[in-house]
């Protein structure tokens, strides 16, 4: 039984609106780390919301196909069950706060309070996520005065405290400067191994840092599904996401006829650099 099972999902935001998802089939197993990669308008945020159970909503149902979580369609789930199965963290941290909390700590325990847990249990859970997300020095702060990176850590902590089986991250670092982005990615990669992580992004860096399975989404369709290097090799990857600069340079050099015809272009930036270093060395030797 897959954790999430999507079968031939076709979806649009209204009867006249264009199709956002156009026959998506995807199965996500427990403990998987999967990146759903797509450019602007590819439908990845919509797909993320289906995976997290934010869709369907009244008036926004699937045209055809379905999404099942543990063999049951989302419609059959109560909010209580769903909140403890999948949690969603979006792009703009401030939009994910309950708005009811005076302090970081209160924001974190908002969800468990809704579950009706015993106060002791809530405190135990809080202890765990405080360490996991490195929040201890921030507990008394007003959530709205934190930096972007700190706010996103709080969003993730507030999601994890619900003890979900899966975490859906929709461009979690899309709004950050590189420094905060790298710090947050480091924090995410430290999360427990049994947590399923579904990352939707259009930057390669977060995906390479977190995921071991890549799904390429374009115009609402899955056009590739496999290991990272298969996706990096896909002709659309460079066009949609842009390659790391050294790889782009290698491509230009090949196009100029200065790449050994026998050698394939390496698939990672570091491999490209190695290749350059070797050849520079050969030329000198």
């Amino acid at each position, binding site marked *: 039984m897959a954790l999430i099972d999507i079968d031939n999902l076709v979806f649009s935001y209204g009867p006249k609106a264009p199709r956002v998802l156009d026959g998506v089939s995807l199965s996500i197993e427990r403990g998987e780390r999967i990146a759903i990669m797509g450019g602007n308008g590819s439908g990845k945020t919509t797909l993320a919301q289906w995976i997290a159970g934010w869709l369907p909503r009244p008036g926004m149902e699937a045209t055809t196909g379905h999404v099942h979580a543990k063999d049951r369609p989302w419609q059959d789930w109560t909010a209580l069950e769903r909140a403890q199965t999948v949690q*969603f963290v979006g792009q703009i941290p401030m939009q994910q706060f309950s708005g009811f*909390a005076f302090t970081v700590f209160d924001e974190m325990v908002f969800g468990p309070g*809704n579950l009706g*847990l015993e*106060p002791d249990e*809530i405190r135990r859970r809080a202890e765990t996520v405080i360490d996991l997300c490195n929040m201890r020095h921030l507990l008394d702060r007003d959530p709205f005065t934190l930096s972007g990176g700190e706010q996103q850590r709080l969003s993730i902590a507030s999601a994890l405290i*619900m003890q979900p089986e899966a975490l859906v991250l929709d461009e979690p670092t899309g709004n950050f400067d590189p420094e905060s982005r790298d710090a947050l990615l480091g924090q995410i990669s430290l999360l427990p191994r049994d947590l399923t992580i579904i990352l939707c992004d259009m930057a390669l860096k977060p995906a390479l840092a977190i995921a071991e399975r890549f799904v390429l989404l374009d115009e609402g369709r899955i056009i590739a599904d496999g290991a990272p290097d298969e996706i990096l090799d896909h002709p659309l990857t460079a066009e949609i996401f842009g390659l790391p600069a050294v790889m782009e340079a290698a491509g230009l050099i090949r196009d100029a006829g200065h790449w050994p015809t026998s050698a394939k272009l390496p698939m990672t930036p570091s491999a490209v650099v190695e290749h350059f270093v070797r050849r520079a060395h050969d030329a000198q030797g």
Partner: protein
Amino acid sequence: MIGQPGPHAGKSLLYVPGDSFIHRLNPLTKLVGLLWLAATTFMLPPEGMAAIFVAALAFGVIAGAGRAFVRRLLFTLLPFAIALFVIHGLLIERADTIDYGLFSLSADGLGYMGRILVRVAALLTVSMLFVTTTHPAILLKALDSHGVPPGIAYLISSPLLLLEPFSTRARAIRDAQQARGLDLNGSWRARAKAFPALLIPLVTLALSDLDHRASVLDGRAFRARPFRVVLDAPEDRPYERWLRRTLLVALPLQIGLAAWL
């Protein structure tokens, strides 16, 4: 700017942080007290209302919110007083109106104006005392910990809580439109024409936010159960409970008495 507290952060939330006696009262006690005082001002003679006004103002100063009080009172009461003066003092003809040539004044009218003004001032200062010493999030906690259904608690506190993000956004929209050539300082006609450019984004964004918030709150199981578990609920001392009960009993009695007399 996303995620950064703006230069105006905290300006539109009326709460003034502090640790005064009034800050420490349970928010429910303050809420009931506010309700009782509001009802009572309608039964008191002007002197009583004036006493409430002065007392509330004094408490406000003690609570450290003196400046906020004075500013808000001036902004609200001054235009109101001028309007009242013009209408009741100058414009409405009364039996005792005396003509001074250029204008005519009525002592009755002025007395009437004074009574309205002192009542509004009393209501306003008492409400100010409540909002400046009670953070909406703490009020919410108090409501939750007393078993008030989350939906109702949400209705009571969210307008206060959402005031700040809302006005931050209103400023951002104004800036964005001015920077693309919208004239907001010109003639009345120009300003009226500019209105949709300010209002439509604000409403559209508020609606899409509402939609998003519903999903966010749902995702965190808000209202999945008929009650919420609250950690560190505001302290509720026995005398406060008694005070609230007394006031809640006194309220209908007073109203009944006033109606009967």
